[in-house]
């Protein structure tokens, strides 16, 4: 396998694995956060504004980890610098 094929195969496989693994943990964390928020809402409904706002802020922080993995996958597929470099080399030859 020459270097161009290697780069392509590794990029595609890693893009898939990044999104696959990178969405497991944030999803589980968000599930736990929402479950705890629902429990505390049931115990103290008059604090619902504070609880909801804190829940959203916490969910955004957890979500950002999944977003990092997604951005890496997108870069690997659409804006891959190694692929661009290799393509430029073969185009220049």
């Amino acid at each position, binding site marked *: 396998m020459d270097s161009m094929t290697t780069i392509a195969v590794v990029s595609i496989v890693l893009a898939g694995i990044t999104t696959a693994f990178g969405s497991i943990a944030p999803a589980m964390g968000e599930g736990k956060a929402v479950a705890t928020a629902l429990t505390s809402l049931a115990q103290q409904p008059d604090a619902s*504004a*504070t609880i909801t*706002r804190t829940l*959203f*802020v916490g969910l*955004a922080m957890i*979500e*950002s980890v999944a*977003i*990092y993995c*997604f*951005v890496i996958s*997108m870069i690997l597929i*659409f*804006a891959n610098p190694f692929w661009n470099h290799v393509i430029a080399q073969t185009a220049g030859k």
Partner: protein
Amino acid sequence: MHLSPDEMIYWQRGFFKLNATLAFTWVLMFVMAVGSKLITRRLSTAIKRSRWQNFLEIVITGIVRQIKDVGLPHPRLYLAFLGTLFLFVATASLCTVFPFYKPPTGSLSTTAALALCVFVAVPLFGIRRQGLARYLATYMEPTFIMLPFNLISEASRTLALAIRLFGNMMSGEMIIGILLTITPFIFPIVMTVLGLLTGMVQAYIFSILAAVYIAAATHVHHPARKAVPQT
């Protein structure tokens, strides 16, 4: 497939490139500035007021209440900065209902610029409230060893702000673009609605996080006082 509106260049000459990000940012700024100027041209304090003035008042009082809930005691001082952040990001994502519109926050340049504004504004507000010496002393809290960690956390939360907003906006667009090639008719509309929802949530998150950082920077530490017995 466009990764960001930075790549859609409308006109260029030499070093300067007019890309879609710049164009749509200026259009948004123009619409928001002219719109609010028109609405506030004749403000009325009577019971009868125009619909748009009512709408603006709801928005402003909502933002003021949120800022006060976060823990900033004088919300009006920070209303200009935090309100602008929220309104810009919210309008940028609401306007995706118009066709041929690409949100400028879908480009890493815009979100990095907004995050840099927060990065600069937090120490400014902290120094204005506490004075330079006391603000710099907060970097040593709780112990001296934490100085590098505090500095790193400043930089990393700025980066996180930028990437979070960029990732959410870009992923919304990309999902719709991909779905349009797979299942054209109804499903992309559902995803557009979801994109609107996440856009508003991300606008709220961005401004609330900026408010929390400013609240942490302007929090004046009171030395422990002995309780005075009431006679």
